[in-house]
């Protein structure tokens, strides 16, 4: 080591946590937790699946047993969720059946479809009955519903966004 240091690397050069807005103690850890959370992985997988064909996936989920059971005629389960015709009791029953599908899912695709069904019934309960029917509050569900919303066909986008927003209004309420 010489008495006059060789300036081979710049003090202040290269990105630092401060320069990225993560300067407070614990900020970087909080960010990494958000990057690696189970919710993030689950939503990312569901959105990727929807981006490959949202209409077909929605139709498939509407035809699944727990959702189809919302409409005895077997043809209007989607409308029951979108328009609010499905009762809170029937939504709770559908949610319980979907949760069984979620726990029984043996692959990522089945899990993502069951998750979409779960989001559909919980969003309908929030939107039309102002009631969270799962373990999570509206505030906890809102980020997940909003992240998935824009990957869905318009009618479902509006349902999910309105469910997430509650009395603050729905899709487009805060601008484009």
């Amino acid at each position, binding site marked *: *080591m*010489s*008495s006059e*240091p*060789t*300036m*081979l*690397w710049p*003090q202040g*050069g*290269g*990105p*630092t*946590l401060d*320069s*990225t*807005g*993560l300067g*407070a103690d614990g*900020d*970087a*850890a*909080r*960010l*990494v*937790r*958000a*990057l*690696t959370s189970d919710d*993030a992985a689950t*939503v*990312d997988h569901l*959105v990727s699946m929807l981006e490959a064909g949202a209409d077909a996936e929605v139709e498939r989920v509407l035809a699944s047993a727990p959702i189809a059971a919302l409409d005895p005629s077997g043809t209007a389960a989607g409308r029951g969720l979108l328009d609010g015709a499905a009762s809170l009791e029937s939504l709770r029953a559908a949610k319980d059946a979907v949760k069984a599908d979620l726990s029984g899912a043996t692959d990522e695709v089945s899990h993502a479809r069951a998750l979409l069904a779960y989001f559909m019934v919980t969003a309908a309960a929030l939107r039309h009955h102002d009631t969270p029917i799962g373990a999570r509050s509206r*505030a906890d569900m*809102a*980020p997940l519903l*909003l*992240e998935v*919303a*824009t990957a869905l066909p318009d009618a479902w*986008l509006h349902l*999910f*966004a309105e469910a*997430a*927003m509650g009395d*603050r209004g729905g*899709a*487009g*309420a*805060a*601008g*484009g």
Partner: protein
Amino acid sequence: MSDLFPATVTSIPAGLEGDEAQREAVRRYVAEVYARPLEAYAQRLRLPSGEDSYALVSSLVERILRDPAYLDRWRASGKRLHQWLANGLHLELRNELARRMRRSTKDLPEELGADQSPDAILRKGVAEALVARAVREAQSSLPGPQHWEILRRHVLEKLDFAALGEIYGVSAERAAVMARTARRRIRKSLEALLVQEGWAMEELGAGLDELLGDLS
């Protein structure tokens, strides 16, 4: 990927197996990523009066950059890179003190105490450097600064997407999508950096867990 890292090189070990240009690029990458964490560590050492942490780290960085075999010796050691560099820092200090004080290095160990585990200090410093680099790289690939700001404020300030949408003039669901895009880009950058650090693709989950542990 870091702009310091050659596009054809996927990791530090792979780069050291490459041609001289690739090996030099790896040495520059290691010097840049590890210099600041090493200086943070050096600042926690009880350095003898007259010793400067920046000068000490500069001496080690010079060795990394100028000695083509330095990182080969690290690979042969079987140690983690941060441990090897910490040892290198101690060696630089011992050599310098021995030279100045004209006495044997074995007389000096009591002057090298640290008040915190060097392993923890260095690992945290390196983890922070990697996160900062991942964020910076992701920022450069995003359409604008709002994506990162929305994610950052959602995670750190706990602002919901409705509030963030109002602040940034977009709908709540758009804010959520922008945050998700930023999150995915940063994770991808971070995973690429972990691969550069030598983690295998199939072990990236464990790499991220370890990085989180180092930050905590």
